[in-house]
């Protein structure tokens, strides 16, 4: 890793007139990445875990008196368990089949498992049944929906934001492009190159919307170029490049990102210059909500001639009035005849940081806590524990693991399914949430010594409510896409507004792919909706709701044992424990069976196990 950092050519820092000790311009604050808050929330919920008493366990064998570690199935286990051994940390037991199946199904597809799938999985005695399940999930349609949602969050594909307007048609084109690409298992680096070089009509093709999303309406064209470059850094390199887009990051970058502190606004302009031959125009300038057409000119460059907008002035440096493209991390320049944006995509996706940022995001999705948090503020100067700047700490909680994941992703040609498979296959991923070896100590979280539970993302939870109660929801979608029956299929997080389902999704923190990041923390509004929202939750527990799980169960049996089994299976994707079953049966017998069955369904929908993964 040291080697490629050393390769970075640090352009000479030019003394620009705007440099001061503190940010000198009152009105226009520094621009910086539209950070995704999800990473922080993962960290907060995870890192802040209380010293919780070890809980009742429903899975796996208790560890022996001496510390035993799961076998290593791949390099992830080598690294995770190796470090735990070194530091004397005990892992949680392996997840039970039920816990594993629900978790991996939610993580890979955003859905809870079908009851039939649960039963088949439990009945399967083959040694490789977890691997077979992972492969089936990776090949499923639901996988495409869930990871399209992830990629859409990453690039903030949305019909309208504070700055920009893709409109529903552009958003749909972008969504369709992402979904098709995920479905075809298009390499992640290829997708990113296609976005960065996107050409054409934004309503007809997806990639031009990368540009449309970054149009800055209240500033000169250079502000848009800056957005395009800075956001590519935040999204695809996991680095807040916007920090150096105004004043070299003076006064605060020490605390933020040492790597970027080593660079200057001039370097950033070199990065932004790659976009300065891109052109955008309304396809019909007389129509307010027409598409944009993105083209690439063969001349032009980044001009140093602005005095207004969202940034401090861009003034000529001596006689130099333009900045030529030069990749911030390496100093590379376009090849002869190469379109500048294509050159940028080539350089960005070839940089090791591109792979590291991606695997860090993906790890966060699968393990609940990224190796580097926040995942969009990675600092390459702080990766190597043996080569740290004075007074600095190592940023990754497991540097060697990060490196190996990045190398693996690159070696496997940025195959999303392959890297996710490697993660899901690891015994580190398959540890139980429940920690029984001793009293849990919060400092073990960065070791991944237990699975870190997370509240289901908004769309996954709503889908889980509908699926477990067998009462599906149809959502209409604007801009010409057909209606969908899964919230995870919604093309952005602004669809479904003004009704109870939209309210539910908002309450559960889906965000707006702009200034409201996706969140997975909890609130009063969430609890009230889960307990009391008639349309979204409570009516779905009613036997009067046609074909609901409760209606079907009551039609099939009057045996409380069977009712308890079926409701647990449909809702929590497992059968009740003996204790749970005894309590449930006693409750079901304590009054009118139909009413008590509805009550049990409601209680299971409100159980913490249902809400968390």
């Amino acid at each position, binding site marked *: 890793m040291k080697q490629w950092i050393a390769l970075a050519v640090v352009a000479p820092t030019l003394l620009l007139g705007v440099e001061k000790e503190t940010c000198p311009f009152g009105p226009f604050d520094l*621009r*910086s990445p539209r950070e995704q808050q999800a990473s922080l929330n993962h960290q907060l919920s995870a890192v802040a875990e209380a010293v919780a*008493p*070890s809980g009742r366990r429903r899975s796996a064998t208790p560890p022996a008196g001496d510390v035993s570690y799961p076998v290593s199935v791949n390099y992830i286990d080598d690294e995770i368990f190796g470090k735990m051994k070194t530091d004397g940390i005990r892992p949680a037991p392996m997840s039970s089949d039920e816990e594993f199946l629900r978790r991996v199904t939610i993580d890979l597809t955003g859905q809870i498992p079908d009851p039939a799938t649960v039963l088949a999985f439990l009945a399967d005695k083959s040694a490789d049944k977890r691997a077979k399940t992972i492969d089936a999930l990776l090949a499923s349609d639901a996988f495409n929906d869930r990871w399209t949602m992830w990629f859409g969050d990453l690039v903030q594909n949305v019909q309208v934001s504070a*700055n920009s307007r893709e409109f529903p048609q552009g958003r749909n084109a972008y969504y369709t492009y992402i979904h098709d690409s995920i479905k075809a298992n298009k390499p992640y680096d290829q997708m990113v190159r296609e976005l960065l070089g996107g050409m054409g009509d934004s309503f007809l093709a997806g990639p031009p919307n990368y540009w449309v999303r970054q149009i800055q309406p209240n500033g000169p064209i250079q502000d848009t170029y800056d957005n395009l470059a800075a956001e590519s850094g935040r999204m695809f390199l996991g680095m807040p490049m916007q920090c150096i887009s105004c004043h070299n990051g003076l006064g605060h970058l020490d605390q933020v990102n040492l790597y970027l502190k080593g660079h200057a606004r001039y370097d950033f302009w070199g990065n932004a210059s790659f976009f300065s031959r891109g052109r955008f125009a309304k396809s019909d300038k007389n129509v307010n909500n027409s598409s944009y057409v993105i083209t690439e000119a063969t001349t032009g460059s980044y001009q140093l001639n602005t005095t207004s907008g969202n940034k401090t002035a861009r003034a000529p440096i001596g006689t130099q009035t333009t900045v030529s493209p030069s990749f911030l991390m390496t100093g590379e320049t376009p090849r002869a005849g190469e379109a500048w944006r294509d050159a940028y995509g080539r350089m960005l996706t070839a940089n090791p940081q591109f792979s590291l940022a991606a695997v860090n995001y993906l790890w966060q999705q699968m393990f609940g806590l990224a190796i580097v948090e926040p995942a969009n503020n990675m600092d390459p100067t702080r990766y190597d524990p043996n080569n740290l700047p004075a007074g600095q700490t190592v940023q990754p909680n497991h540097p060697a693991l990060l490196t190996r994941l990045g190398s693996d992703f690159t070696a496997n040609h940025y195959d999303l399914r392959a890297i996710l498979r490697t993660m899901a296959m690891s015994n580190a991923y398959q540890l139980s949430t429940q920690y029984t070896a001793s009293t849990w100590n919060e400092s073990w979280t960065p070791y991944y010594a237990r699975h870190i539970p997370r509240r289901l993302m908004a769309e996954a939870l709503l889908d889980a409510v509908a699926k477990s109660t067998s009462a599906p929801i149809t959502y209409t979608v604007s801009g010409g896409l057909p209606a969908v029956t899964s919230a995870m299929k919604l093309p952005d997080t602004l669809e479904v507004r003004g009704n109870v389902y939209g309210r539910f999704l908002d309450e559960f923190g889906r965000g707006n792919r702009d200034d409201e990041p996706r969140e997975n923390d909890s609130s009063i509004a969430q609890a009230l909706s889960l307990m009391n929202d008639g349309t979204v939750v409570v009516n779905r527990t009613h036997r009067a709701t046609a074909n609901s799980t409760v209606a079907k169960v009551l039609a099939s049996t009057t045996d409380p044992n069977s009712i308890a089994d079926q409701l647990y299976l449909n809702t929590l994707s497992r059968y009740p424990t003996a204790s749970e079953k005894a309590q449930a049966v006693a409750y079901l017998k304590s009054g009118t069976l139909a009413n008590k069955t509805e009550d049990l369904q409601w209680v299971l929908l*409100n159980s913490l196990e249902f809400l968390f993964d």
Partner: protein
Amino acid sequence: MARPRLPKSTIECPDCTKASGFPLGQSEGFSRRRFMQIAGTGLVASYFADVLSPRLLQGATTAGGVYLRATAKNAIFIFLPGAPSNIDTWDLKEGAWTPSDFNPTSYDNNNVRFPQGLMPMTAAQLDKMTFVRSGLSWAAVHTLGQAWVQIARNPGGATGSIAPHIGAVVALESQINRKPTDVLPGFIALNSTGIPASGYFPASYAPFQVVPAATGLPTIAHPDGASRFSDRWSFMQQLDSARTTGALGKATLDMNDFYTQSKALMDAPNINAVFSFSTAEHTKYGATTFGDSLIVARNIVAAGKGTRFVQATLGGWDHHSGIYTKPANGVNSLYTQCAQFDPAYASLLADLSTMPGSVSGKTLLDETLVVIVAEFGRTVGVLNNQAGRDHNLRMTTVWAGGGIRGGNVIGKTDVTGGSVADFGWSGNRDIRPEDVVSTIYSALGIDYTTMRHDDPLNRGFEYVPFAKDGTYKPIDEMF
């Protein structure tokens, strides 16, 4: 009355001083006591994260020595997105364009000319209102300007992406003063879906979103009845053992805490009455959703159950065409918008001014800051070729209650209303959204120069960017 100073820092935090640019000794730090107070709130999570991750800092610093008004207990933030025309309303400029039925009328010894015909009920409340006419927006783009005034900063700026709504800041700041009977969330937003929320703060500070309905909150009562709910709640407590064992981790216990708080809200006597209203009140406030919002806003501040910031929103002011079109089916013009606004706002001020406050001798209006804000103003002079007005940065904000002297005008625009003739305040410059928010914070006793050190970007989160440097400040002339 200045806010009591917090004790000096007892936790060494050298990075804070670097980030905020002044030596530790001159800044208010993060006291142990303050921590223990915060520890009772959702912020405990970020504190422990700080301990484990040196990259994150804790605590907050302020410029120090700032004079805070602390004249208001509550704020009602009336947001008018789309942006009404100032020269037809709060800063009336009469010309050949002015419809005669606006009936421009002089009030308060000609201090104010007001379109009495357009807003007759509001005209009767002018003695309570102060117009700040030297306001200037930063952005003539709706979404940008709207976010800007609600988060007190450039949405595209460094901290724009993590910034909470100003109401969330108020909710967080008021958290330490909450009483056990304070069952309502600190920030409630009425008919205001899609507004900024908690930013990087915990979701508990996000606006509690309510679309007003005569029957109250849709999820406050269990739809299958209290008896069934009681059975279900008890059985849930019994069966879901993870709620007590914590076997699924702290995040699940946080969720369980919110269940407990929700139950307290459901059990609080008459709490749904706060969100409900009669047909008579609905009619009095104009029989609109906006009117309903202001009834509920009134009820919320009157209830005194922990809510400190209420937002009510009335959109539809983007009159690029037909701004003076007379009301008819399907028409949206100043007439139709003001017909919604006028009875609601005027009734709110009238009601608050006659209702007792929490302190003897004070009215509810005395204790409640009511501020009207839009994202910008509209073009001045003759109408455009669509008989409308386009976006313009010059804007007026309207203030009442909460320690504001009524019947006052700050700032004077020129004869057209397009530029400022007299800024009218000690800042002697345009009054920006950041100044507006500083004023709201000051009135509520919140130090607008605060810089938190728990933000995920680790660059310090300023409640009002650059306020600690003196760039922005409250409009003290109003008090």
